[in-house]
């Protein structure tokens, strides 16, 4: 009897503290927001030249290849300059993480570099390893970015970090980064789920697409 009460208390307590977002919630979120985005593009509310769309199209395409055939096929519907990525990147040797603060500009540049399939050099790999350790050890306490002026900026930076970790995991076949991206997404989801119509919605949508596509590709 006592054991049953304890097990019941354990189940309740776990529900209260568990911050894992169920897969079905994330997939429902993706479907809804991509349908909305499709409608907004068709109505002209969102420009097809928005640079954020390029990576979203790519993410949708990756997911469609993994069996998500009900997602809108943006590629067929649009031919946009957003799909054309700029060439050439300056290699960045500066540390992304300095005294516990993450340099958001370098995060974005590294992500762009990876999207262009420009190989990272040794110092950048070391940067990534340091970032991984920082997030895994400090968890949400480690989400401190330079130049963040608001809570919203902070969560936008988390979305960029999550996309970067997913992209790196896929490129290096390193499950540890996918693991960290999943954790980052759990934290960010609570903030972004009701803010898709605000600025920042697209970067987060892109981060979730990147994460889900990578997870399916690496584990199927």
């Amino acid at each position, binding site marked *: 009897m006592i*054991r049953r009460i*304890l*097990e019941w208390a*354990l189940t309740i*307590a*776990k529900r209260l*503290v*568990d*911050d*894992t977002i169920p*897969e079905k919630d994330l997939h429902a979120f993706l479907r809804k927001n991509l349908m909305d985005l499709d409608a907004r593009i068709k109505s002209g509310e969102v420009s097809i030249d928005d640079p954020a769309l390029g990576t979203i199209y790519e993410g949708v395409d990756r997911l469609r290849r993994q069996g998500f055939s009900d997602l809108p096929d943006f590629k067929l519907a649009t031919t946009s300059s957003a799909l054309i990525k700029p060439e050439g990147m300056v290699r960045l040797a500066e540390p992304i993480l300095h005294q516990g603060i993450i340099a958001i500009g370098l995060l974005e540049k590294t992500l762009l570099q990876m999207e262009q399939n420009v190989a990272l050099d040794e110092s950048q790999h070391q940067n990534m390893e340091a970032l*991984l*350790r920082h997030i*895994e*050890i400090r*968890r949400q*306490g480690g989400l401190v970015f330079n130049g963040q002026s608001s809570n919203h900026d902070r969560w936008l930076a988390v979305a960029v970090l999550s996309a970067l970790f997913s992209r790196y995991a896929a490129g290096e076949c390193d*499950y*540890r980064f*996918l*693991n*960290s991206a*999943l*954790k980052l997404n*759990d934290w960010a989801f609570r903030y972004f789920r009701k803010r898709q119509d605000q600025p920042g919605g697209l970067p987060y949508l892109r981060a979730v697409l990147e994460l889900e596509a990578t*997870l399916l590709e690496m*584990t199927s």
Partner: protein
Amino acid sequence: MRVALFAPTSRSLYSRLVASAIIQQEKIELVGIFVRHLWSIKRIRTDLRREGPRLLQKVYEKLIAPEAISQGEANPLVDVANERLLNFRDLIDMSRRSGIPFYRVRDFNSKRTEASLKGLKPDLVAFTGGGLIRKNILTVPAQGVLNCHSGLLPRFRGMDTLEWTILEAQGALPQVGLTLHFMDTGVDTGPILRQHRVELNPGESLNAVRKRLEPEMVQLMCQGVVDLQRGILKAIPQEKSAGRQYFVIHPRLQEKAEMKLQRSA
């Protein structure tokens, strides 16, 4: 040989089995038992940060109902405890009955622990869990601090190495296992003494594999202590670049590892 035991809790079945095996050995003396305070804020904060929500499950399994938790499921460690007639309920009880000094400490790395340990002049510390050990403690025992890591070093360092090993495997099911090593200031980077490899059975659950490995951990640790006393174990340093540190696995990746193991049936 003088051995001190470090244990995460006084009720840890693994720690109790190791302690009980050590005191039965000739030429080996258990000179002290160190157990961490359970309800220190620092410990709860550190453990919560590392383990996240699953800490609750661990607390329940390890502290509230350790022996009886696996009703209806095989628990080889409990079977070993029953076979060995482990008749003391915790390490406090054991220390009282055997006259072994018992130390309840807030932190294994504190000055107080260091002073108490130095007073015991141990040749070896058998570490059975409770966090990372710092240099001030690592240098006290003449031979070092012994740990049994539940993974194959040097490749898989850190947490949840069973799941990581399965996830990263290409093709056939990988070998998993345990590694006995001396601790250093890194995470599972100290010199390796011995390994125990096991095959995964197709269709086996992660939990079943973990349970199957637990008695092997006791055996590896105890045999390691005996063989160090006999002077027949050689420590082989690890190449730092030969492995990676893994962290607490996300439930979705853990589920994928479980599915991969199940699909192998």
